[in-house]
């Protein structure tokens, strides 16, 4: 049995235990601005996978290349070096016609609303619906529902002139969403909005991600909406400095907390542990641990369930059944003894596994921490 992958648990590749298809796949992407002597590199060998239904927030100081990356993903700039796949299409060296078609699958929300002053809110949104070839009545119903949802129900047939800045931005957001794009690219979508309407917009984003499987990549400095991110990508000087699947990491941390030995760890340490875990997959009936083998890994069940079997002479007896969020394999690592039971997957399951060395190191930190705490408390008395 070796279903161990090199995919880190916190990569977000498995969301709720499912390996999702990649919407955006960036590999070895470089980008340059200017020509000749003025040629300046803006992106350096970037790699990034964004999967279906993920909400990705890109952060970083201005000039770090996050907007450049966003425009490259949005097909608005030409990819010249490296590989960039969007919705299964390679953009490096892509045909003009293919790019025009691909753009119709995308939804753009820009910092400026860019609405036609001559068209009403409805007509502005309809410009996107028409392009998608939606039936007129379907489109009309959807536009009205969307604008109403965004708090513009009373102003559907107003021209931008008679709308406030925030209202205009919400019309632009409706325009970016009306054709149910598979990928939404947004630049500071909530910058012009107040707390409440900003929240409404990100809630809408979340619904689209969950229900329609829409992928959202957002550049934002708005701390109020960081909590909706499944993944936060931080860019500095043209490099992706960190790429953390925050949602999945917090799920793992929740699970780890359920393990008594880890219960006292600080959130930071838990996140570090999560980072060290690797993804394991198992088919139904596959044995993950065989009784009597030396122990080398600690397992957390991300999805699926397993049977715990203990050999009693020639026959083996099922002693327990474990499910999502539960763990196994810790005893052999703590005691350094062989495995005391066999674990067999009941169905297709996904596990996050931690190596023996890492596991031990965590336990030690945990102990130190406890000890320190005890001493601190003692000194206070």
């Amino acid at each position, binding site marked *: 049995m070796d279903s161990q992958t090199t995919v880190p648990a916190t990569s977000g590749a498995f969301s709720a235990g499912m390996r999702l298809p990649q919407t955006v796949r960036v590999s070895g992407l470089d980008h340059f601005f200017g020509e000749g002597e003025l040629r300046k590199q803006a992106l350096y060998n970037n790699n990034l996978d964004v999967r279906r239904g993920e909400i990705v927030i890109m952060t970083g100081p201005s000039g770090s290349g996050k*907007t450049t990356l966003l425009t490259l993903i949005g097909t608005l700039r030409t990819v010249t070096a490296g590989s960039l796949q969007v919705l299964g299409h390679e953009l490096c060296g892509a045909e003009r016609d293919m790019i025009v078609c691909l753009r119709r699958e995308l939804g753009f929300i820009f910092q400026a609303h860019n609405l036609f002053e001559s*068209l009403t809110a409805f007509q502005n949104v309809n*410009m996107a619906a028409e392009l998608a070839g939606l039936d007129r009545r379907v489109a009309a119903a959807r536009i009205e529902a969307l604008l109403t949802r965004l708090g513009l129900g009373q102003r559907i047939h107003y021209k931008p002139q008679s709308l406030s800045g925030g209202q205009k931005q919400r019309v632009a957001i409706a325009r970016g969403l009306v054709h149910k794009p598979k990928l939404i690219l947004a630049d500071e979508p909530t910058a012009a909005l107040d707390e409440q309407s900003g929240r409404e917009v990100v809630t809408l984003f979340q619904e689209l991600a969950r229900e329609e499987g829409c992928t959202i990549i957002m550049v934002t400095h708005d701390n109020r909406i960081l909590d909706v991110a499944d993944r936060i990508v931080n860019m500095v000087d043209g490099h992706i400095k960190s790429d953390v699947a925050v949602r999945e990491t917090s799920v793992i941390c929740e699970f780890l907390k359920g393990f008594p030995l880890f219960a006292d760890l600080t959130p930071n340490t838990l996140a570090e542990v999560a980072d060290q875990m690797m993804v394991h997959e198992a088919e139904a009936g596959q044995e993950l641990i065989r009784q009597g083998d030396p122990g080398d890994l600690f397992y957390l069940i991300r999805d699926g369930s397993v049977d715990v079997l203990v050999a009693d002479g020639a026959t083996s007896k099922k002693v327990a059944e474990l499910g999502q969020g539960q763990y196994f394999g810790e005893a052999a690592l703590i005691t350094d003894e062989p495995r005391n039971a066999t674990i067999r997957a009941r169905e297709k399951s996904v596990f996050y596994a931690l190596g023996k060395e890492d596991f031990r190191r965590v336990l030690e930190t945990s102990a130190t921490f406890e000890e320190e705490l005890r001493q601190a408390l003692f000194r206070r008395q």
Partner: protein
Amino acid sequence: MTLSRNTPLAWKNLTHDRRRLAVAIAGIGFAVLLMFTQVGFQNALFDSQVKMIDDLQGEIFVVSRAKYTLAAEKRFPRARLHQVRSCSGVAGAYPLYSELTTSVLRKIKAGLGNRGYPLRSLGYHLGDPIFRDPRVAQQSQRLRAPGTALVDVKSKLKKFDFARQPPHELAHQALELAGKKISLVGNFELGTDFAHDGNLIMSDESFARYFPHRNRFADPLAVVDVGVVHVQPGFSVQQVQQRLVQTLEQDVHVYTRQEFRRAEVQFWDKSTPIGTIFLAGKLIGFVVGMVICYQVIYADIADHMPEFATLKAMGYSTGYFIRLIVVEALLLSLIGFLPGTVVSRVLYALLAEKTGLQMLMNLDSLTFVLLATMAMCIASGLLAVRKLLSADPASLF
């Protein structure tokens, strides 16, 4: 993705800014006016060149092959008309005599000769159905007396100020034609053109008296300027013309009315600078319109660059933008054309009154100016569309 069914963006953008629309309409209307003025003058001048032909009766006309324009004094032997009469389908063939260079009309004042001015003298055999103007036939009795003539009331006022007087006053005018006394016994209406400042009509007998030397050493009426041929009812003009061409010698042209007209207009259009001058005028109108239209469309595009870039990012194709601008240009041309035409119409009426020229807005000139306006707007739209295509959606982030 037809524009008609979808959001009418071209129309909305055009009509959104009322002030700009007003400027656009005024500008394009002005260009339309310029072109209409040129076309109107040109047509009026050509029409007056062929007014003489229009005022003749008959379906077929015989002229000397050497006669390149009505004003050219090239004649053919009268014997050709006998040949014409012998052809089947011909109801009659009548000679019309015309004289210009030696036909100088002079007003005698207090016994002293004033300076005279040349005008066209037309001679015909009294009773021949040649002129359409009914006044000629009505007054033909008066022409029987030798030395009498009818004068064109539309003769140039400056040179022939007496032409507009009523007949009884005309009779008192002391006048000399080609050095011989003449009395004007009535008037008719024909009009002037580039070559002729006025017209007289007289009997062939009087004509022979005034211009005895037009045919050297022979009967002055033996050479004819224009042969007017009437076709018998029920005969095809084309067939009769064919027959005449076969019968007659090669020294004459046999024209139908249309061909005669066209040949005359052709001469003034192509062989004189007139056509070129008006062409230049029309071109100037066209260019002025193009510049205005370009400005309007370019300003509209420049003001909406981020919006158009957004449409590009959304996946609107180059074809859509080109169609959008072409539609916008066409709308501009139409909404500029209508007021321009109305104003031109008024101007035509004013000019016709002032100059005496026939300013007619016929279907041909309407079609020509409309097509020119559309072409000018579309051309400038296509020039401006490059700006739109340069909209860079990457600049939006």
